[in-house]
């Protein structure tokens, strides 16, 4: 289960952070980064995605054994699609904490809203 937190900076800026797997990051990592205002991350991820798409397929094609080649391709594909989804929120948290943001509000386990 993901967990929601609000981070705040002394300058009054704020950000919302959701832990756990992110489907947006898994499929569209640069877009995910832009929505979190991680502009540098978005730019670098565009370059990395472009470079990986050019570098990895030729490298995999160098493997002679078809079985190993298939496994390598599968591992690459799995990592390519799942790693951003799993790592995105951790990266977001790391960037926020490094920039001096602190947790101001956290999710409680028992919801008790008005009128419930």
């Amino acid at each position, binding site marked *: 289960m993901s967990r*929601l*937190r*609000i981070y*705040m*900076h*002394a*300058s*009054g*800026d*704020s950000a*919302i952070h959701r832990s756990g797997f992110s489907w947006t990051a898994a499929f569209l990592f640069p877009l995910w980064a832009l*929505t*979190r205002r991680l502009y540098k991350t978005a730019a670098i991820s*565009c370059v990395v995605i*472009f470079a990986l798409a*050019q570098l990895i397929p030729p490298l995999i094609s160098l493997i002679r054994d078809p079985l190993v080649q298939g496994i390598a391709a599968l591992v690459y594909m799995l990592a390519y699609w799942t790693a951003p989804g799993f790592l995105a929120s951790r990266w977001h948290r790391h960037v926020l904490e490094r920039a001096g943001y*602190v*947790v*101001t*509000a*956290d*999710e*409680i386990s028992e*919801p*008790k*809203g*008005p*009128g*419930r």
Partner: protein
Amino acid sequence: MNSDCLANLRAHHADYIAFALPDSLTATMTGVLLFAALFAVAAAPLVLRAYGGQVRRLMRLHQIAPPPQAWYERLRRSRVREEPSELRPNHGASMSDLEHAAQSRRSVIKRATWSAYAAFVVASPAILWAGGSVDRGDVIGFYIAVPVLAAVPALVNLQPQGSKTWIFAALVVLGVVLSALDPTSKESVESAVFVPVFVATLYLVTAARKLRTVVGVMTVWLTPTLAGVLAAGWFTLPIFSCLNAQAGPREWALAGGGATMALLVLAAFVYAGNRALRLLSWLHERGFASDISLAAGLGFILLALLFAFAIAMESPLPKWQIGIIASVWIGATLSVYGWLIHRAATGGARRSLLLLRVFSRSRRSERFLDTLQSRWRYIGPIYEIAGPDLARLNVDAYELEKFLTYRLHEAFLFAGTDDRQLADRLDSEPDREGRFRVNEVFCLDSAWRETVGQLMRMSDAIVLDVRGFDRGRLGTEFEIELLARSGLLPRVLAVGDATTDWALFDGRIQAAGCVPGDVARAPIAGKDAVDRFLRVLMGGAAGQSATAESARSTFA
């Protein structure tokens, strides 16, 4: 650059340039806008669902450290309207003052709306004239369709909480009539698809209570974004047309450069989309337009563009000229509305209403609260703690902008705050057209108890909807006790039905040391229930009598 590339560019040069000429640019932009509206219609239910989910999750958060002072200063700076210095200003005395002021606000909106409708209908022949020679059947169809379809946004602006069934029925009848007028048309297949899609879009943009704000706002947001996709393709076409099939260093450099340029162009248009969204939100915040008139205005714009688009397909005139005629048509309609509203701006008596309720997802409950708040908007501002039940119903351009830009938490109160900071969050002044706002106060779990107490003290009348109230409703129990302890029961009208546990209700009041008879209570029965509730609440709010006494005489 090799000779193939140059030859390629020369061969497609004329088509490439033609795309940027006013004629095709007008047609493309209209098409983009209509496509954005259709896309928004398809995505709106999902966006609204996600919005409701986000609100529910944020409501569960608890403050663990106080926000820095800079946060409050930033919020105060972001306010675009000044609020009165007093928290509970006295703007009038008697109930007749209130009734007169409400009636005068309603009349102004009614007059402006029907005048805008008349301007739209009267100016419509101009677009037909631009179409050149049109079949007799099409002309008759046009003159039937324009007044009927234009009545949809007009009625929505006058009766935002009602008329949906009538509107839907009228649209279906219109579709049948138009089909009967031209049963053997060659375009009957296109019409069979186009007309229902068009009618459904118009209905969802203007009349569908929950979706209309989302569809309107998303259309404004998506139009520049979709235009950006086209622009990125257009700008990078010369680069990609120079690519050879064989991948070499030159191809990689070109492809990389082209992709970067496409991303930059797209980013610029997405930024423009965000600014357009901000502008819409600003117009709403400034009070130039309410959520209701925004939906109605977008309805008129959509109608004019659809007629212009259909006419332009057959017209001998250049499309950019039809675009100008359509713009003048839209401009005239909106200007008439704006001018009449501006001329007849009303002040006068006002009273605020606090809406407390058991959070219920039932449509019946939602409909009653919607009708009540829609009618009270002519009397004064409405305050309510945002909850999962009404959050999706009352979503406005500002809240949606915050949600779409991932900043919805900025609309939330983190913990109890002082009265001044709370008042900074509220919009107690009427819009320029005279309607007051429904102020949803979004609270984290750590904020709502203190905030609801402040809202109780700030409000002139309080409705407590206790339908479905039973032992599990701890929040409502807290609110009843707080009302009793604060001595505010004379301002309260409790609304209940067979599902209300009145014994528990009375028990909570007694536990706070008060007498259950101090609170007015009324069942929801009869078609005029809302009228009677409004009279009771106005009587109480105007200080004519305690709400309980007023209720006793009204419901006797």
